[in-house]
């Protein structure tokens, strides 16, 4: 009876030295072959694309034999259960011994074996908890009778290799998965923070580092509340956590919340948060997905303010309209009625006085007509509706109290709200030039470039105007913003003001 402690040790060493299961198998194969002095070994595994057949995935041979043909034959072959020596062992899940494969009827590679000088062979299963992972076969240079002790040792080694390979495989899959998750989390834009049941930070990804201003190394292990929750909200957070742990009643879990977060410098900011519980054995751990919504909140506030201003501007326009009508045309018509009534009562007795009153009445009527015309034009210029920007801007420039030149105006028509925005931009620019800038000259330029209407009103006045100073310019900015356009006022203290408006359009 010969024991094989050297082989067992060599295999144990080879398995211990590497984490890669494929490499571990290759080393085990060589360790067995060299320690036993056998000539050739091979590993067979179920084919990945046809798991009901075995294929040869690894071979080893002693340095002094020409195993090329036999190895090639092995690697080409796929064996069904029960077919050849590997197939038999795979089927029976027990080791097997063949005194001379060249003489064995169930050995498809026997011709190649004869030419390679291979005769006795044994084969044993690589067994794991999941079943047989594959088989390992060995051949030597002369026929040899069954060595039951060797075969027993090999069967035990097969179990050992199986367990090691399986562990390696699990660890490898785990590591690969972890690396993938880590890469995903590292690239995430939202902050992912995990917390244990004590409230301590377990993980803090790069997005969280950027948002909250702590390095992962500083954050992990610290009380999450102290780290990212403003002091006045910490107690509520701790009570919520304690209540959850006591009752398991998920008040906040898996819901989208808007809360206040705190950065390392103590500044607070709005955060959108979802908390989920990680389902692992032991005390609960939690993952928080946090997103800094400062920009979104600011955009929402801007939008609300702009909407409110548009409504307020419309209301103000109605009030002004009522006032203009009341103080203007309506007064003139009242005076007209009084003049006419007085003229009538004097018609017979004081005809000269009656004529005077009628003249006054005609004057009132003319004035009322003029005021109504101006009012109507101020509400919306008829020339713009009928003829588009060119006639409307020509009329506007002609009425401007500061001399205005139209440098360029497109003849084509645009959407009504685009034309209106462009028209009122020019009107506001001219009003500003006349009222505030004390300008002597204004240039107006309207051109269509790349799907946008560019409007520019340039004056040579005193400058120093601001886009958000007057209600007129602010109202105009809102009107332009509602069309996804932009208004810029360039008005240096050194003089001159440019009102520049860009409105997306299709002619």
């Amino acid at each position, binding site marked *: 009876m010969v024991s094989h402690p050297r082989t067992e040790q060599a295999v144990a060493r080879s398995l211990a030295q590497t984490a890669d299961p494929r490499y571990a198998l290759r080393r085990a194969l060589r360790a067995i072959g060299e320690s036993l002095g056998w000539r050739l070994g091979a590993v067979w595994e179920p084919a990945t694309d046809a798991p009901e057949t075995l294929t040869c995935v690894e071979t080893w041979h002693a340095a002094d034999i020409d195993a090329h043909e036999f190895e090639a034959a092995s690697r080409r072959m796929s064996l069904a259960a029960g077919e050849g020596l590997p197939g038999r062992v795979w089927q029976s899940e027990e080791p097997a011994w063949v005194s001379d494969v060249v003489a064995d009827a169930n050995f498809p590679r026997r011709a190649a074996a004869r030419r390679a000088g291979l005769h006795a062979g044994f084969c044993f299963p690589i067994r794991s908890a999941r079943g047989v992972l594959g088989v390992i076969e060995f051949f030597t240079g002369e026929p040899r009778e069954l060595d039951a002790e060797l075969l027993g040792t090999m069967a035990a080694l097969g179990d050992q290799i199986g367990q090691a390979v399986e562990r390696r495989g699990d660890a490898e899959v785990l590591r690969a998965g972890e690396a993938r998750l880590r890469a995903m989390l590292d690239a995430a834009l939202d902050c992912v923070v995990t917390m244990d049941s004590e409230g301590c930070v377990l993980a803090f990804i790069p997005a969280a580092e950027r948002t909250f201003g702590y390095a992962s190394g500083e954050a992990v292990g610290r009380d999450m509340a102290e780290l990212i929750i403003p002091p006045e909200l910490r107690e509520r957070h701790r009570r919520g956590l304690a209540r959850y742990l006591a009752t398991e009643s998920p008040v906040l879990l898996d819901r989208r919340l808007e809360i206040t977060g705190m950065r390392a410098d103590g500044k607070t900011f709005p955060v959108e948060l979802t908390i989920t519980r990680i389902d692992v054995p032991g005390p609960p751990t939690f993952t928080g997905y946090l997103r800094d919504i400062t920009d979104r909140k600011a955009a929402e506030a801007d939008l609300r303010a702009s909407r409110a201003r548009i409504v307020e501007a419309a209301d103000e326009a109605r009030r002004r309209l009522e006032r203009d009508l009341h103080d203007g045309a309506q*007064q003139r018509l*009242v*005076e007209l009625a*009084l003049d006419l009534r007085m003229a009538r009562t*004097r018609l017979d007795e004081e005809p000269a006085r009656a004529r005077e009153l009628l003249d006054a009445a005609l004057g009132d009527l003319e004035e009322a007509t003029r005021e109504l015309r101006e009012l109507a034009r101020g509400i919306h210029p008829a020339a713009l509706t009928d003829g588009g920007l060119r006639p409307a801007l020509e009329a506007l420039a002609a009425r401007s109290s500061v001399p205005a030149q139209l440098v360029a105006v497109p003849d084509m028509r645009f959407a009504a709200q685009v034309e209106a925005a462009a028209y009122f931009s020019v009107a506001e620019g001219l009003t500003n030039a006349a009222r505030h800038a004390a300008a002597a000259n204004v240039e107006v330029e309207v051109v269509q470039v790349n799907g946008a209407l560019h409007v520019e009103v340039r004056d040579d006045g005193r400058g120093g105007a601001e886009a958000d100073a007057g209600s007129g310019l602010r109202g105009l900015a809102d009107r332009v913003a509602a069309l996804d356009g932009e208004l810029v006022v360039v008005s240096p203290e050194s003089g001159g003001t440019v009102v520049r408006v860009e409105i997306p359009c299709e002619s």
Partner: protein
Amino acid sequence: MAVAVVIVDDNARFRVRARMCLEADGYAVVAEAADARSGLEAARRHRPDIVLLDIELPDMSGLELAELLTREPGAPAVVLTSTHDAADFGERVSRSGACGFVPKGALSGDAISALVP
């Protein structure tokens, strides 16, 4: 003796016409005022029979002034007027103590005498 009238209205063009109109119909316009404060003073000084009072005054509503005027001892009759219609002011015209309302365009001596008791 002619019926004495004080006209309270911030619009000078209207005051000119109202005076002409009422005087032609035999009323005596004893004073004009352009706001509520001077209207109240004029009424106290001249003690007119009638105050023709515009509802929209710069310093106070004519409706409030009507209440003040009609609470005074020996109060004048107050006739409210406006470019707006009486209906625009709802119940406030009848509650103000004024004896009536004349739209500005319909002002005449007859319209006034029809309202004053």
